């Protein structure tokens, strides 16, 4: 089976130590986390972790089943690229020490619907939202001006359509039913 980049959405208790429990499961099983984003959900006691990892279908099933064994994990969903929307925010600080360069960079930003969020005499900071191809494209164009710093939030993702990660509304697959036995 081909290993591809997979997105896992994990609902967890918003408590100390939970992120390290989840993250160490990946390293413990021999996987590198490609991208990680964590934040609270509409319920403050629950956080949502979005993790991207390179693995094949079988490995992803095993990983999600291992995750479901953690007491702090409420729910795990594998988000297939074709059924999910994925976005990340990238902040790029670019060298721009004269009017011409600034103008050019602003034009590029406009094409990508990116916003200029900071300006100084010698630099511009751009915020762009998108998936990795968009971030990569703008990065390539800005490279020649000199990228001073770049930071990304990590990918976040939601399923398309009415289905959610919630047990009640989620699409039932064989390995998706409920929590793994404790």
């Amino acid at each position, binding site marked *: 089976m081909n290993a591809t980049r997979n997105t896992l959405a994990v609902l967890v208790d918003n408590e100390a130590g939970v992120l390290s429990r989840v993250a160490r499961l990946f390293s413990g099983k021999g996987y590198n986390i490609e991208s990680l984003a964590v934040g609270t959900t509409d319920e403050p006691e629950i956080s949502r972790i979005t993790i991207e990892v390179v693995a094949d279908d079988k490995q992803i099933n*095993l990983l999600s089943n291992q995750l*479901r064994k953690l*007491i702090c994990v409420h729910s795990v969903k594998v988000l297939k690229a074709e059924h999910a929307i994925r976005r990340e925010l990238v902040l790029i600080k670019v060298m721009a020490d004269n009017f011409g360069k600034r103008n050019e960079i602003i034009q590029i930003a406009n094409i990508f619907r990116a916003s200029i969020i900071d300006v100084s005499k010698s630099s511009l900071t751009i915020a762009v939202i998108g998936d990795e191809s968009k971030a990569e494209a703008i990065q390539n164009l800005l490279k020649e001006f000199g990228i001073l710093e770049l930071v990304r939030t990590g990918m976040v993702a939601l399923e398309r359509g009415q289905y959610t990660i919630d047990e009640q509304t989620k699409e039932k697959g064989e390995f998706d039913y*409920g929590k793994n*036995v*404790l």
Partner: protein
Amino acid sequence: MRLNGAKILLECLLEQDVDTVFGYPGGTILNVYDELYNYGDRIHHILTAHEQGACHAADGYARSTGKVGVCFSTSGPGATNMVTGIATAYLDSSPIVCITCNVSLPLIGKDSFQEVDITGVTMPITKCNYLVRDIRHLADTVREAFAIARSGRPGPVLIDIVKNVTAEETEFEPLPRQEHGTSGRLGELMRRYDFKPPEPDMDDIRKLADMIRAAQRPMLICGGGVVRARADRLFRDFAHKIDAPVAITVMGAGGFPGQDELTTGMIGMHGSQASNMAVDECDLLIAVGCRFSDRVALKPATFAQRAQVVQIDIDRAEINKNVETAHHIVGDARRVLELLTPMVPQLTHPEWKKQVFSRPTETEYDEHPGSLTPWQVLSTITRLAPDDAIISTDVGQHQMWAIQHFHFDYPGQLLTSGGFGTMGFGLGAAIGAQVGHPEKRVIHITGDGGFRMNCNELATEQYYRLPIITVVFNNGTLGMVRQWQNLIYHQHYSQTTLDRAPDFVLLAQAYGLKGYRATDVHEFESAFRDALASGSGCVIDCAIDIDEMVRPMVGGGEHITHFMID
């Protein structure tokens, strides 16, 4: 009522019907031990020589009684000394609750004296662990920890309590165990997930029943899940109904009677010819509570290559993990077998059985006149010891010989570190089993290497008058490692020869126990008879030849019938 944290902890243990705790005191857990002083009539504390021994004892107690084992230790080195014990319990799914105390909250994170982040250290080897920083969460946490340790696939849970919590006071409401799931955090957890194992899917069961009816050459593997679920009777009825040979894993020993006519013996690296060949030739392989570890499915790609593999396991994460299955049922072994057996007719497979049992189910070992062989020791024990004697082992050659030779009849009769392979497990586990079963004889089979690791627990054995018989297979070497060096590493016996102190007979005497030396079968027999009759703990040092091997053997990663030695 208003109680301090230490009292709340002990009251919570009583709620769980805990009457025995293994442990070792120290600075941060002093408040708990101070209260324990007043609970002596209800909670029996066994003071071991080392925290690792306490942890193995709690594990042995849990494995042999089926109850949750409990151990105490202090912070820092006390807590880290338990780590090997916790990992041993984790790999073999044994339910224990380890209670450690940490430094007081203001000292946490300051690299204080005897401070360690034990919840961080034990994260990968516990089902769950807790750091209790607020006394109001203490009772709930203990209740949750016990529920998690024993539910589903059992395993170790660790509770780390900061010292000031054990001294502070709060309101405590006693709650009978059956009501624990109705309130607090545990109630919330139980509303969120069902703590009961998933009810097996009836369509899956029917499908398996059809597969069984269609099979010409069915084969069963009895794994550790049968033992943990205490599903031995149901498994036996099932095996006889479908008339299939049964191979037993190390962890499955006791899940199926060792002398049953359907037993093909052990399977895997040191499995019998009958077991390993049958797994290779069968057309349907049903593994119950077995995760196909690399010591069973040595080469997953060719394992049971002619068969449809069916896995029955309580843990969904085990399905397809090591071996690709054609069908699986997620559920408790007991429940699945209860539903499955009535769905299949009485079958017979005389030809298939004839084929399987044409090969030896046990290894024939040579006798060397004038010297003592492992086989003679084990046969003598079998002949003289009570049938229900509990056997605990360390890890290595003696472990494999013991499991190959003894016929285990009930779950919990064999205590061995199967998954983690912990040398030094045996004596601690034997202590736990003997405390849990004062009426039974406990025999501890060990090697000179493994025994030397944790023989300090002889002090515990002596003090509590535990009549454990330790039989040391003393070949003056790390036998299993030497066997690999002999077969694979060109007889380079690098750092495996143990031609050194102590003299185990004198060692036993130093601990106030009787020591025997046996150099031939007659000496062993008289020593063992004496040991059985005396009813007190002892050590029998058996002189075994340095080049005895465990046979047969399949090399790691090799196809299961590629025997390196027969």
